[in-house]
């Protein structure tokens, strides 16, 4: 069963509260803080209320508890079966967790049951020993907060070697690729992990001294005409971006999207893919990009 209270936020928060109660250091203010930090916005009303009233006889008036052990919860069969299913994923080679305890567990699903029909075909080489080794080193540097020397080939084939602070690994399911996001020298590097030839973990850095540059945000406004189910298609297609939609009249909408400047070309062809049901109304610079494509199309078509 997927939807069950044993996985719920309330049980996790209570686990923490009771951990302190067993250790004997629970106080009223600590209880309130734990609920505020770990639970939902309105749990602050219900959880302490139930504990104080005695309707959940878990903590007494002196913040003691009849429990004798720090509360822990064994993994459910569902959790174990999901972990077992992950072991069949080719990307698991990048992580190599301890698989002990899952030997006799049945996998929850098989990767063969899924078809990713619109995933690009040139995904990262998850079985390449060099790629796996680099991935492990990046994770080590992230865990230990250490700098990295990365040697890679740029998209033009030129070799680079940089010393950087690894910030995150970014994965795109559409591209099936990992990118390493880095900081250093007031610059933000995005490196396709498949282009990395070698990695070297260097000295530790002081996290407070690292400022990761954020990508430039841009705003785009489009007018949407709800033909051929365009409303739903557009809303879903751009649902991963921050957006706001307003109905202008029956069948016409205005959508404002916020996107990263570095993804402008990608966004341009995604807008084009919807044809005339989407019309860019601002900014002018983006409209010019579309006009340019259309002008080129006219020339190519005429030959």
């Amino acid at each position: 069963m997927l939807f069950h209270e044993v996985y719920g936020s309330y049980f996790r928060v209570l686990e923490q509260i009771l951990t302190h109660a067993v250790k004997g250091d629970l106080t009223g203010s600590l209880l309130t803080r734990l609920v505020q930090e770990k639970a939902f916005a309105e749990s602050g009303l219900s959880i302490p209320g139930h504990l104080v009233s005695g309707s959940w006889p878990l903590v007494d008036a002196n913040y003691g508890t009849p429990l004798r052990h720090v509360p822990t919860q064994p993994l459910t069969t569902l959790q174990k079966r999901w972990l077992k299913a992950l072991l069949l994923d080719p990307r698991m080679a990048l992580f190599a967790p301890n698989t002990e305890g899952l030997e006799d567990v049945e996998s929850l699903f098989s990767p063969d049951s899924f078809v990713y029909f619109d995933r690009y075909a040139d995904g990262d080489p998850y079985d390449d020993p060099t790629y796996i080794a680099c991935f492990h080193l990046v994770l080590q540097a992230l865990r230990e907060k250490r700098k990295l020397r990365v040697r890679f080939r740029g998209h033009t084939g030129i070799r680079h070697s940089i010393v950087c602070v690894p910030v995150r690994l970014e994965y795109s399911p559409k591209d099936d690729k990992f990118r390493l996001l880095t900081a250093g020298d007031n610059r933000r590097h995005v490196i396709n992990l498949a282009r990395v030839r070698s990695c070297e973990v260097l000295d530790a850095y002081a996290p407070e001294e690292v400022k990761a540059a954020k990508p430039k945000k841009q705003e785009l406004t489009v007018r949407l005409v709800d033909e051929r189910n365009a409303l739903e298609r557009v809303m879903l297609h751009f649902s991963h971006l921050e957006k706001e939609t307003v109905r202008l009249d029956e069948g016409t909408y205005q959508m404002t999207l916020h996107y990263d400047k570095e993804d402008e070309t990608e966004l341009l062809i995604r807008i084009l893919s919807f044809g005339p049901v989407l019309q860019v109304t601002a900014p002018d610079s983006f409209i010019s990009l579309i006009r340019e494509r259309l002008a080129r199309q006219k020339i190519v078509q005429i030959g």
Partner: protein
Amino acid sequence: MAYSELIKSFSRIRDYMRQFYVYGFKSREEYGEKSARSYDNERRRIESWLGDLMSFHRTRDGKNVFLSVDSRRIPSNPLYKAFHAKSFTDKDVTLHFYILDILASGEALTAGQITDGIEEYLRNFEMPFPMDESTVRKKLKEYEALGLLTAQKQGKTVTYCRSAHTVDCESWRDALAFFSETAPLGVIGSYFQERSDFFRFKHHYILHALDSEILLQLLDAISQRRVVDLLIRSSRGKDDFNRTICPLKIYRSTQTGRQYILGYSYIGKHMVFYRLDSIKTVTMGSEEKQYDKYMGFWEKFDQNLWGVSTGAEYTMDHIEMTVRFGAGEEFILQRLEREKRHGTLELLDEHTCRFAADVYDASEMLPWLRTFIGRIVELQCTNGYVTKTFYEDLARMYKMYGGEDHAVS
């Protein structure tokens, strides 16, 4: 009944969350047949779970609530939070912590012994808390089914102990952070506390989370090779309808986040797709003896599927697109190679290539074809609708961006 931020059933909240997230321009009155109080309660719950991600704007129609997030900036899917909000009774929560504590030393105990232990714990509290052995027994069986406890039978005596927790979850921290967002049923990953913060996700669609219960049931049916009866929400009318299929594969789109079940339809005697977000319930049926035969049908069928449309007639369209690219634009060839899914790519000269494919429904390719606007020398298709739509749409776009004659120069 008093308002609670927890919920008993997931189905109603599933619809509201979808509406807030996907559309976000509907006013309270547009949430149809449901009552105003119901709307207020669901909105309040979602606000309680998702806090800062909820926004609203005022229009002449009233206040419109919406959920907006750039999923590239967050480490985990916020919609999973709904799955962390299952309601429970006072007895459920009390028994949970008492039973797991009583069994924490590793002893195997009978239901009676566990009930005695519970009564001893309850003596610490003045307020009466009625608890009988049959309630305890029921909870023990439930936890055995979940896998939290293991039962052992010796003669007529059944004893319970905690299931062995031998998985080293700490060693899974990075894998859990990654697969919670990328693997099917990632919501289960959100049930683990051990997750690192080293990953972010681009092109990350999160809405599928709401269909996790349906997906789990379909995967169960696939692994058991069982027929399923689906109750499906009609996209056009208001009436739900039932379909019985042999489920074969789950099709997932990385470009919209949509998920589909592909199955063999017993009524139509052909392959059918249904979107998971349109499926309300799944009822497991009997085992399908001819499962391998239908999988054979699928293997052949998949070779000419562009996406998830079979076309009305299940006939094949032949399509050819000639594309021109300039010097230094060889990346266009790479794009075609990695995005084409099926078909062939032929280099006609130094700067021109032709993509050709046979697919069930070429009209499904139109969005992808349009991404090459600016480079398409010629488009031909045996399905006249495709070329007609493509060139008519293009003409509309020329007009839209400034007029037929001068706009796009």
